[in-house]
């Protein structure tokens, strides 16, 4: 088998999953080695992946696999996050049950994501899509308890999306007689516009479910909160990006020529904007670290959709840049929260506090991540968000700028809550024995990703080069000198200066921060309960003197009108109605045999009456 071919690539990815499952019966070190080797090997193989496409027939359908610059970019994100994820899992999952199932499903999920990306036809895309869905479902329910409910919810939302996709795929196949995306696109333009609208609409709907776009985001908070932390990083960072990948493909490879393309994209951009604003407000309310991050993910995906839907070269660049960066910093955050959970068993922001000296590396990770999330230079998040604002302004979407700006600013509130509640404030006795997580398997993934945010912030060109070839593939007119598109770059003319500028800012900031950090560290004053003015009363040792509970009460009161209505409740209502309908319908089966006999006779009479009426 050609080792630069996609079949070999997928064989390694999937084969490793089953090998790891079998190795679990031998020894866990052996299993871990296989797991790590599988993800690293597939990550490495990405570099050597050949250009030739690969077709095979299956069940009367021709499945075609091949790489495109667009898919390679996303595959890079998957690989970038997959390696830290499995590394982080080794210690994290060591005390959990059924590790074999976990690694099997994790590796299948990763392999299926590669499969999705390297599908050149809609059916193989769907097949890998579903494999990804069920394997991630099994991962989500891994913990049992509430996770089961969250997992089923995730699956049902996903199923609604997936079957919307399948609906379109079947019809498109029927129309074009081929499943290849190119062929489908060619015959797609020949359909009448309404048909085009329906087909593209169902496809976009289907992909947007995975991306967690409102109103179909309801699965995300529960599923992210309940899945094992290392997987959550991959879940939010890479898996939900498959939705973005699909939406980009539909919008620019299939739907672009349709007369409805522009209004649909405008609508999507707005959906993205609203999603980012509402999800940010929700995130501020959360008291559970993982739920907070979950809503934050929904919000960030909103930005990406916004950029993706606008469809200017700059906005696309912004969307893809944020796609990568969000993956990186959200993985860092989930890792850090996972590390805290690993040591304390808690994710509740009201209970955690003062861990900064106990877990400094986790703190540093969170700090780096939230700097990136809050778009502060010099870290990578800044570049993406800047490009997004610029593209919004260039395409005259001033109102969306306001929405985006509002939600970015509001996101300061929740990231502050996150870092404050967990790491700052009074140290608690119960956390006295908390240690930092082990270096190799848990600190290293976090620090490596932190380095990525730093590097992408200072050398965005590393990321922009693959993005621009991806965009060229999608048909965007990207000049070779892509720097000239953004004000961010062209004020200084060439990339050297840009690099210098950002490096200077970065270095100053970082040195300042480091000095300050160590300076403060040395001068940390140990507060005793007696130092605090408490009207003559001496508070007891375990009395809470920091205010992490009801953190944003005033805000919540202000935002109440918006947040009191929940879209999720509406979707849940649909689910409940179906369920009640089912409960009603099963009463048809009364349990009385004679009733069934009546059904038979009445049915026969009805049939005969209808028959004679027709005659």
């Amino acid at each position, binding site marked *: 088998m050609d080792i630069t071919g996609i079949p070999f690539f997928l064989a390694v990815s999937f084969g490793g999953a089953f090998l790891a499952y079998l190795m679990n019966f031998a020894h866990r070190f052996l299993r871990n080695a296989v797991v790590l080797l599988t993800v690293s090997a597939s990550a490495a193989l990405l570099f050597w992946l050949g250009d030739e496409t690969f077709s095979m027939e299956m069940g009367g359908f021709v499945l075609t696999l091949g790489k495109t610059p667009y898919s390679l970019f996303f595959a890079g994100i998957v690989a970038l996050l997959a390696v830290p994820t499995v590394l982080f899992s080794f210690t994290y999952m060591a005390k959990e049950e059924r590790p074999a199932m976990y690694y099997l499903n994790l590796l299948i999920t990763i392999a299926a994501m590669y499969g999705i990306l390297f599908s050149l036809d809609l059916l193989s895309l769907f097949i890998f899509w579903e494999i990804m869905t069920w394997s991630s479902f099994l991962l989500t329910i891994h913990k049992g308890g509430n996770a089961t409910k969250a997992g089923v919810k995730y699956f049902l939302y996903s199923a609604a999306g997936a079957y919307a996709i399948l609906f379109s795929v079947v019809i498109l196949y029927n129309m074009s007689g081929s499943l290849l995306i190119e062929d489908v696109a060619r015959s797609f333009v020949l359909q009448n516009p309404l048909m085009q609208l329906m087909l593209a609409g169902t496809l976009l709907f289907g992909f947007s479910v995975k991306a967690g776009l409102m109103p179909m985001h309801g699965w995300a908070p529960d599923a992210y909160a309940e899945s094992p932390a290392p997987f959550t990083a991959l879940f939010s960072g890479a898996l939900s990006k498959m939705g973005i990948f699909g939406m980009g493909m539909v919008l620019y490879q299939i739907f672009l020529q349709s007369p409805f393309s522009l209004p649909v994209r405008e609508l999507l951009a707005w959906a993205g904007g609203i999603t980012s604003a509402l999800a940010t407000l929700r995130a501020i309310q959360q008291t559970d670290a993982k739920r907070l991050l979950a809503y934050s993910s929904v919000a960030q995906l909103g930005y990406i959709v916004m950029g993706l839907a606008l469809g200017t070269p700059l906005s696309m660049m912004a969307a893809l840049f944020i796609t990568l960066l969000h993956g990186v910093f959200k993985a860092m955050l989930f890792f850090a929260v996972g590390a805290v959970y690993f040591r304390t068993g808690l994710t509740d922001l009201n209970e955690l506090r003062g861990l900064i000296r106990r877990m400094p590396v986790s703190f540093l990770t969170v700090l780096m991540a939230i700097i990136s999330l809050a778009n502060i230079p010099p870290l990578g998040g800044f570049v993406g968000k800047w490009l997004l604002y610029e593209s919004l302004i260039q395409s005259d979407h001033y109102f969306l700028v306001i929405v985006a700006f509002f939600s970015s600013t509001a996101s300061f509130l929740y990231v502050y809550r996150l870092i404050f509640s967990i790491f700052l404030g009074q140290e608690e006795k119960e956390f006295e024995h908390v240690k930092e997580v082990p270096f190799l398997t848990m600190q290293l993934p976090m620090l490596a990703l932190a380095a990525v945010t730093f590097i992408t912030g200072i050398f965005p060109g590393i990321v922009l080069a693959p993005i621009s070839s991806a965009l060229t593939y999608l048909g965007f007119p990207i000049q070779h000198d892509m720097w000239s598109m953004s004000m961010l770059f062209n004020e200084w003319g060439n990339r050297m200066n840009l690099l210098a500028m950002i490096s200077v800012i970065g270095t100053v900031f970082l040195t300042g921060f480091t000095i300050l950090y160590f300076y403060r560290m040395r001068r940390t004053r140990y507060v005793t309960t007696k130092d605090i003015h408490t009207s003559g009363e001496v508070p007891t040792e375990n009395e809470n003197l920091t205010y992490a509970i009801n953190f944003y009460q005033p805000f919540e009161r202000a935002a109440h009108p918006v947040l009191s209505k929940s879209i999720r409740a509406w979707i849940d209502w649909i689910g409940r109605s179906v369920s009640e309908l089912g409960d009603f319908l099963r009463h048809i089966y009364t349990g*009385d045999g*004679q009733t069934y006999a009546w059904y038979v006779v009445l049915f026969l009479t009805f049939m005969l009456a209808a028959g004679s009426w027709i005659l």
Partner: protein
Amino acid sequence: MIYYIASIAVMLIGLYAVLVKKNLIKIVIGLSLMDAGTHLLLVAIGFIKGGTAPIFSEPGLTADAMVDPVPQALVLTAIVIGLAVTAVALALVIRIYAQHKTLDIRKISSLKW
């Protein structure tokens, strides 16, 4: 014609018992009646007025003068089947009665929904 009407009538009486009567044994009787009605109908189809048994017993007898033997063969088979079904049904009725101490079909609906 009268045979047809009679056989249909027997079937309908059986159906009535199946649909309306609440006693399990009466329902089984209804089922048997429905079977019997169908059997009658089958025989009636093959019947020729004044026809003889379908055996070439004497010379000169043509097939036109005989009743159709096929329905009779069918009915024989169908009767056997009907018997078997009735036997199984009655066996079940006995077991139901042993467990529930009632023959009212309305009270035997623990399996439902």
